């Protein structure tokens, strides 16, 4: 049985993907190739990739996963440590990182779904997972930051004196993840996941192997993050236990929720807007009022949740409908 059949996308979707690609590709020109701004733009794109990867497990399958940084960190640690200690190219490190992240996802996801852990317990378990991996990494490597070797311009080692190459790699990844989101949403797997999200018991009664498809969604999500982890450490130049950041994982889930569960445009918009506001506030008021952007995230999600309790996605969905007819997928 073919779960995800890659069909030729219709012209409208291809146009939309191309528009995203062109807008993000032109951004460095608008920003005047300013190193700091390019770095921030890369962070925004990275957040969008993470939120869209989360969309597959959180939005489509409806599992409130809070372990995004465990998978990102595992991928980053493997790719980064191979480069720092053995001079192995990230082009090998990144697929290995993705495999390790998928391995971790299976190790944790299999028993978790097998024992029917969901809702709050799933959220807690995944939040704990980030801290567990962080502490294990800390026990092995301690608090020292491991620096990646410096190269002025090396595609082989993915190390550059500038941020543009990494930025463009992230943009390519973003378009790939968008494409993956669209393909999955329209596939058999996508419909299974939607059924599971809406009513797990009913889905099971219809003969859907709930455990298996939840695990598939988790593996895809972990694989993307594990791969991107390699680009992430190249961007920050260091491997540290702080990569396994439980707060960032929560922020990613919040972005996914504010963006609207399963809504591709919503999640992309939320990631870009929220992360840009965050960087702006950090740049202007960060010194006087630390954590202001998180305060705003908090207020936003409480307001959306309390005022629109029938679904967080609904708000953005209805606004979007008012402004434009179509959407991705």
């Amino acid at each position, binding site marked *: 049985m073919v779960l995800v059949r890659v069909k030729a996308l219709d012209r409208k979707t291809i146009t939309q993907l191309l528009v995203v690609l062109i807008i993000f590709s032109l951004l460095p020109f608008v920003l005047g190739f300013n190193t700091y701004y390019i770095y921030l733009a890369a962070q925004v794109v990275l957040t969008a990739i993470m939120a869209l990867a989360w969309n597959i497990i959180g939005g489509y399958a409806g599992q409130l996963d809070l372990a995004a940084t465990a998978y990102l960190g595992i991928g980053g640690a493997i790719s980064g440590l191979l480069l720092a200690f053995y001079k192995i190219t990230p082009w090998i490190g990144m697929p290995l990182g993705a495999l390790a992240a998928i391995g971790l996802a299976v190790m944790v996801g299999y028993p978790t779904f097998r024992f029917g852990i969901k809702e709050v317990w799933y959220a807690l378990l995944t939040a704990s997972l980030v801290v567990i991996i962080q502490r294990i990494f800390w026990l092995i490597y301690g608090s020292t930051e491991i620096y990646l070797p410096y190269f002025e311009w090396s595609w082989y080692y993915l190390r550059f004196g500038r941020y543009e190459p990494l930025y463009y790699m992230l943009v390519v990844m973003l378009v790939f993840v968008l494409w993956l989101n669209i393909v999955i949403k329209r596939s058999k797997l996508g419909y299974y996941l939607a059924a599971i999200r809406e009513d797990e018991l009913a889905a099971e009664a219809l003969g859907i192997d709930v455990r298996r498809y939840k695990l598939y969604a988790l593996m895809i999500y972990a694989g993307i993050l594990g791969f991107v982890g390699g680009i992430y450490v190249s961007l920050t130049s260091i491997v540290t236990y702080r990569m396994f950041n439980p707060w960032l994982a929560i922020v990613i889930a919040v972005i996914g929720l504010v963006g609207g569960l399963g809504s591709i445009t919503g999640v992309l918009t939320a990631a870009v807007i929220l992360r840009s506001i965050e960087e702006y506030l950090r740049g202007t008021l960060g010194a006087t009022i*630390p954590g202001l952007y998180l305060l705003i995230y908090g207020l936003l999600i409480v307001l959306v949740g309390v005022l629109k309790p029938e679904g967080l996605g609904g708000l953005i969905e209805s606004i979007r409908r008012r402004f434009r007819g179509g959407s991705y997928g």
Partner: protein
Amino acid sequence: MVVEPALVVESLINGVLNGLLYALVALGLALIFGVMDIINFAHGDFVMLGTYFTYIVATALLVDPTLTVFITVPLFFLLGIAIYRAVIQPILGSEPLIQIAVTVGLLMILRNTALAIFHAEPRGVPFTVFNIPLHIGPITIVLSRVVAGVISLALLFTMHLLLTRTTWGITVRATADDREAAQLMGINIRKVYAVTFGLGIALTAIAASLIMTFSRADPYVGLLYGLLSWVIVAMGGLGGVIGVLYSGLILGIIESLGMTLISAGARELFLYLTFLIIIWLRPRGLFARR
């Protein structure tokens, strides 16, 4: 590896004392979750807020942190009712994802307000009368830990009696068992919920004042206490105060022994690994919500 027996005994005693305090920290959450079926992710950050209020009151009045409860507990009770009315009531009975999202938002508001006001530097109370080391042979225990453990145990016991021996307790337990039936018996559900939430939050203020006798207020501790409380609730199931007490003790002992025998920096590792194993091995029926 040779481990001194005295060290193990000391670690065990500390684990038991900590475990009692952890049970107290989790008690408010267990009450709110058990009675109202509300998933409160912000619980740990109420504890964090409590430590700051304790710090403010203790510094302003120059009293021992344990005495601040006379101000912070009524304040937190009212705060709890206010938050219940503004944020919790609208999401009663809505799907878990919404409840988690909204209380995560609440958590972010609490934590970052504290961060905005106090910045990231931890604050300690000016003094506490309980900061005295007790020497019993080769074992050394700090008095403040003993006080925190004993007060926690007393409060847990009081709460147990309140829930099992008073009319109010019967009302609360009836509401927890069957909301509709309780309503038909003439119980004012909204009032029970508001008071339960207020009480659950007020309990964090007491726990916070005890924490402040040996620790400092820090905007980042919320996550630890929040996850810790949920771990205890998960382990105790909905087994009432006794379940919470046993779970707290088990976690306290595992954490203390792990820190002594393996590494003090890996504190969270022992807590969450225990959680992972327990949540996997416990039959799903005990975790499934009605």
